[in-house]
């Protein structure tokens, strides 16, 4: 793929490091052919990803522009986020509502985000670490960055999400996804909602707790009444506990996952709290560059940002839409399916038509 040099850029031989040998530099505007992958290397101005050309020379990624050089090549494989975006007409809806959707305030509560990821650069609006105040929201797990890529991945390099390039509030509510010692419980969620709901229209939560906590329910009810829309993952069978809250609350839009064949995923717990199922298996999205930049994940977590994106589009179309309006709108694009006597609503053939 081609990128355009935006500032004087040294050519580093052999290593993505400022200490690697350098024999020449490139002038701004120079077009450069690179292999399309990001390599972790020395951090310069907060960016530690590098590009590499065929000859093995490295270029600091902060010194290039991606988008103008070449349009994003999309394979449209079922693992690609944009495959499903296109499949259900979300890209068209986005194009139609592009202006309005930028006004929709979206928040993701997760493990944090890699703000410097090429597909997510400059997209974080407000951020806060709710696990440990005054600490950074860096994502050391990958889950939050993955979900963010699905929701707002700009597609600068590889991942283009439902709302490409949109701004995002990020609340770090857990340090890692594994239950136990990650900092996520009802108290953390309540804090996060209290912090972000006043500045959000849509909140995407790809996490949950196993028990119904009245205080959490109350706070969700309160902000739902104020027009905030909560989209939450219903939980996976593999979870150490059936972490179904807040998804099970009526005020939330509970999300289950479908497999690539649009059948209810084996991972999704069978629960009446599911309002909509969306593909969520083997989704390739962004992960922190230190972990390899891209990776596949499965689960209701992955389906949730897709649905949050849809909810944001509906909200863009109808800024006063309540949760019941949203559910009605979702019902228009879903079909009722049955698997082993379990009934669920899934997006199968219909496209979002806003």
């Amino acid at each position, binding site marked *: 793929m081609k990128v355009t040099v935006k500032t004087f850029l040294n050519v580093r031989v052999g290593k993505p490091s400022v200490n690697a040998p350098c024999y020449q530099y490139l002038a701004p505007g120079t077009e450069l052919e690179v292999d399309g992958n990001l390599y972790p290397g020395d951090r310069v101005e907060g960016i530690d990803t590098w590009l590499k050309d065929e000859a093995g020379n490295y270029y600091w990624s902060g010194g290039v522009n991606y988008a103008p050089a070449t349009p994003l090549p999309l394979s449209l494989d079922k693992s690609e986020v944009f495959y499903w975006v296109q499949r259900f007409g979300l890209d068209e809806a986005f194009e139609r509502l592009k202006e309005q959707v930028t006004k929709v305030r979206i928040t993701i509560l997760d493990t944090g985000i890699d703000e410097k990821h090429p597909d997510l650069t400059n997209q974080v609006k407000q951020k806060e670490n709710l696990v*440990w105040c005054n600490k950074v929201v860096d994502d050391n797990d990958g889950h939050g960055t993955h979900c963010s890529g699905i929701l707002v991945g700009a597609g600068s390099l590889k991942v283009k999400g439902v709302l490409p390039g949109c701004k995002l509030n990020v609340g770090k509510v*857990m*340090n890692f996804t594994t*239950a136990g010692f990650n900092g996520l*419980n009802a108290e953390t969620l309540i804090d996060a909602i209290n912090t972000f709901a006043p500045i959000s229209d849509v909140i995407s939560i*790809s996490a949950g707790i196993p028990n119904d906590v009245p205080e959490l329910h109350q706070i969700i009810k309160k902000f739902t009444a104020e027009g905030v829309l909560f989209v939450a993952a219903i939980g*996976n069978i593999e979870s150490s506990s059936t972490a179904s809250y807040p998804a099970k609350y009526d005020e939330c839009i509970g999300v289950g996952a479908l497999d690539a064949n649009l059948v209810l995923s084996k991972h999704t717990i069978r629960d009446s709290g599911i309002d909509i199922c969306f593909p969520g298996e083997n989704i390739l999205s962004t992960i922190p560059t230190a972990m390899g930049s891209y990776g596949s994940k499965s689960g*209701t977590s992955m389906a949730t940002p897709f649905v949050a994106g849809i909810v944001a589009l509906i909200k863009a179309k109808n800024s006063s839409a309540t949760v019941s309006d949203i559910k009605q709108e979702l019902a228009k694009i879903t079909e009722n399916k049955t698997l082993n006597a379990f009934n669920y609503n899934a997006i199968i053939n219909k496209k979002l038509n806003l």
Partner: protein
Amino acid sequence: MRTLLTLIASLLLSWCALGQTTPYYDALMLKGYVTPRGFIAPQTKEEKKLLDSILNYYSYKSGQNPFLDQFSTNGEGLSVSEDGKKEGEQPKFLQLAKPISSIGSLDVTNLAEGMALFMIDRAKEELTVSFFNRFKEFTQEHQEIKILFPKTSDCLENLLDVHYAQMLPALRTKFDEDLQNIPNNMADLLDLPQYQPLLREFPEIKITIQTLQIIHQMETGRLTPVDFIAKLGSLEAWNQNNQSSDFNNFRSAIKLGAIFSESLRYKDGTRNWIRPQMLDSLVRDTTCSKIFLGLLYQRLVTENITFKTYDNNTISAAALLAEQKENIDLFQRELYRFIQLAENVDLNIQEIKEKKKKSVKITPDDYYSYINTSLDIIDYSVEVASLFNPEINISDYAYLARKSNNLYRYCYHKDYALAITTTTDIITRFETITKQKKSDNKAKTLLNEIIEKGQNDRYKDFDSELDKNSFHENHLLVRAIKSDNNLKDSTKKALLSYIANSEFNKLVALNPKIITFGLFMAGMVAAETPEEVQLAIENAVLPAGSSSIKKKSEWNIAVQSYLGGFYQLKKASQENTSWNNEFGLHGPIGFSVSYGFKKWGAISGFVSVFDLGAIIDYKLTKDSVITSNGASSGTVVKKEGKITLEQIVSPGVYLVYGFPGNIPLSLGVGTQYGPGLSKISQGGVNVVNNPSWRPCVFLSVDIPLVNLYNKPR
């Protein structure tokens, strides 16, 4: 990625290198992961790996640790990996090596030599040949005594070949060496082949012996105290099949103590345990304390330590700890107590090291302090279980462990008298344990069955033979049983166990003599003046409390004396006979035959031969004469003349009742033929030549001189 792996590897390695495999260090580290909200939540991937490794090391399971669960959260991200596992779930991390033992060893090999220099040569000819001959015979007759006092036995072999005045210094050296080495000699004694079946049956005895041997390793510097406790907890004998709840409790108590001690181990070999100041950071912070207890709890869960309660219910040590979940203060207090004891050990070690460094001579006292404080902490470790629940019964075994420790302590401090009584206490407690198990009865039933069925004529008189046989003969019998193909394995096992029990009972029966001669040896070693040497002999000949022997025995024959007052029932007709007093002091010496009623005292037939009453009367009078100016004087009256045999011969017959319990008084009634005794007074000597019969009752102190025959109950 390689950098990341290297970083993780180096973090883990540094974790190991820093010795962060103890709850103390791990708790401090995890404290750094506690969020302001009070949850443990590592931030970086490396921290997460480290946390996972630690939790994996302690086999932590969510929802099963009342301490650590307080720091966990129940929320989670809802993605799964491609293989269907929960995303982020770590594979079982490689088990980190258990703490490496044998660090910080201290060289104390010169100790034994240093302690052996205690010698004095001021003893005189007061030692009696008869006493030493009896001692010699005793060592020759009993193999066990030869093992318990090997050097003394060798020395006594040649006793009569030389004058014992010349022999005495050497003998005292041998006493000292044997007494000092009693813990090891005792271990050797119980290691004898005839006790092996018993040791197999009662692993607790084996453990006590091994305890003695391990302490010896500590003494010689091959083992540090912290490793000692760990080693004690991992003895193979604990794994021996034994259903006894007491044994189980003891095993659990030791293991619990080992884990407790291990949890506060210092990170490198420069000391054994952490410093008291270091404990502050753990104890003053309740969060840290809870994490520590959580990790400790996890170790207890992993080790699956259980206790039996008095009502025979099983309760895990982890559950006991959990019961005290709200009682953090208790743990904090006890942690301080433990570390204070530990600090004493480490200070002693440091002192010895410093002295070595400066080439200052290390005294036995230095080593005594070291061993003494080490044993204190071992004692404490064994009793940690009772902190959680005072109703846990480990009394028998804790008693044994304590006694074993004390034995070492006493030997180091040359409290040999206490060492001897402790030795016999241990043997007696072994007997208690073996009797409790009633295996003897089981073996006996089996033996009777063999005899009744006529399975093997060879064992017809087995029972009585055992009592008569010497150790050597019984050893041959053991070999014969082992090679007897006609016997079933179970029968062989029972017979061997029976022999072992029988041998053991013989050993227990030797206890009184071990005490007699052992205390004599102890007294001799401690004696620094001729008077003290004499006193040591007198103590051996007239052991305190010996009057109670006849009460506790069924039959007893002894050379006996009484000292007390009499009341004459029928006054002599002539004024100038020897027995013209209605009241008086008497001191007959003769022979007694007694039958004991245990707590109800004893009845004796006493035949007097001599009576020293008048001489004793004189001695007492002399000691209390008041001079004219009121000052006491010991030499106002001088005895004149000589006492002849006829003046003390006084045959008589009495029926004597010895009072119950430990009261050394007797009430007697009988008659005695009065001697032609010189009556001595301040006025001079008045020889009375008209002996006569005197029927009287007396109330006297009971003083047995030598026990000639004793049949225990």
